[in-house]
């Protein structure tokens, strides 16, 4: 089903843009440069965080943590290996990406753990960062229930991701 999605998207976007008399080629290369700049800006964070993640794995800390939390996570139907990802996700997008990429390499990208990690990453956001940017810029001091409501959405996302990874 998803085989032709990306080629179709490329054609669709280019046709619409050409119909609106846009310089498609210039937009592609300008945007590409922005993408590379974005990657460059998160690269140092990925280096710092993957250093910590690899130390955690080599020390046996991740295995210990996974074993301790296994009863709770199996009760909730969540793979225990994805717990570090869930803990980091609301704080840092690059940290969650680093942990997720490592899970996909260690356990296999198409394994249940690898797929659950990918679905979790794809369906959640960097909650605390978003809240601080939006409310900070507008000068809102009392955020009322924005944080708990957003965290309920995140938790629902993690639980549903564990379920959809199994059935879809």
């Amino acid at each position, binding site marked *: 089903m998803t085989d032709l999605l990306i080629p179709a998207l490329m054609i669709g976007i280019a046709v619409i843009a050409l119909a609106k008399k846009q310089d498609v080629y210039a937009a592609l290369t300008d945007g590409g440069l922005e993408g590379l700049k974005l990657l460059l800006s998160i690269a140092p964070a990925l280096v710092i965080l993957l250093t910590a993640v690899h130390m955690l794995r080599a*020390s046996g800390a991740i295995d210990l943590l996974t074993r301790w939390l296994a009863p709770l996570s199996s009760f909730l139907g969540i793979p225990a290996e994805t717990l570090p990802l869930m803990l980091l996700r609301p704080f840092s997008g690059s940290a969650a990406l680093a942990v997720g990429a490592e899970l996909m390499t260690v356990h296999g990208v198409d394994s249940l753990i690898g797929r659950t990690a990918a679905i979790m990453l*794809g369906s959640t956001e960097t909650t605390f960062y978003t809240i601080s940017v939006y409310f900070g810029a507008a000068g809102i001091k009392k*955020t009322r*229930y924005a944080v708990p409501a957003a965290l309920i959405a995140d938790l629902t996302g993690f639980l549903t991701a564990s379920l959809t990874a199994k059935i879809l």
Partner: protein
Amino acid sequence: MIMGAIWLGMILLAVGAAFLSGNTGALTPAALEGAGSAVTLCISLAGALCLWSGLSKVMERAGMIKGVGKMMRPAFRRLFPRASGDEIALGCLTANVSANLLGLGSAATPMGVAAVKRMHALAGGTEATDEMCRLIVMNTASIQLLPTTVAAVRAAAGAASPFDILPAVWLTSVCSVSAGLLAAFAFGRMRRD
């Protein structure tokens, strides 16, 4: 600040666990190997990210944010009754949510900030309104139709079909946004009583 503390906590946890398991010799090689693997990850992501960003730029310049925004107006009148009475606020809101749907993060944030600022100007005070909280939930629960960065990571890790997680991502996003909005409505009502 908080990321520094989290990072230190990760290192301390690693050192503590290494002492417990008598595995302290593995720490330094793992640190250097982790640093190197981040660069490998970046290089393997670079091509796909460059391509998505290029396509995003085409969507942005072709005015697709506005097109999607128009389709969402009816739903917005229910979610944001007060702000949708104001042309500027409604324009910022629809632009923010459509940019998020299309995965244009760099376009979504300024529009979202502008929307909160406008709602703030309409409401006054330093307190978040119910509608602002709903907008926050729609932004913190990802509603991106194509999770391109994750797909790039999956492709880099050798996935046979990087986008085959799409149905699961969509269903998960719908559930999390709905739960967040329901929670926001419930909290908002509790407060008023």
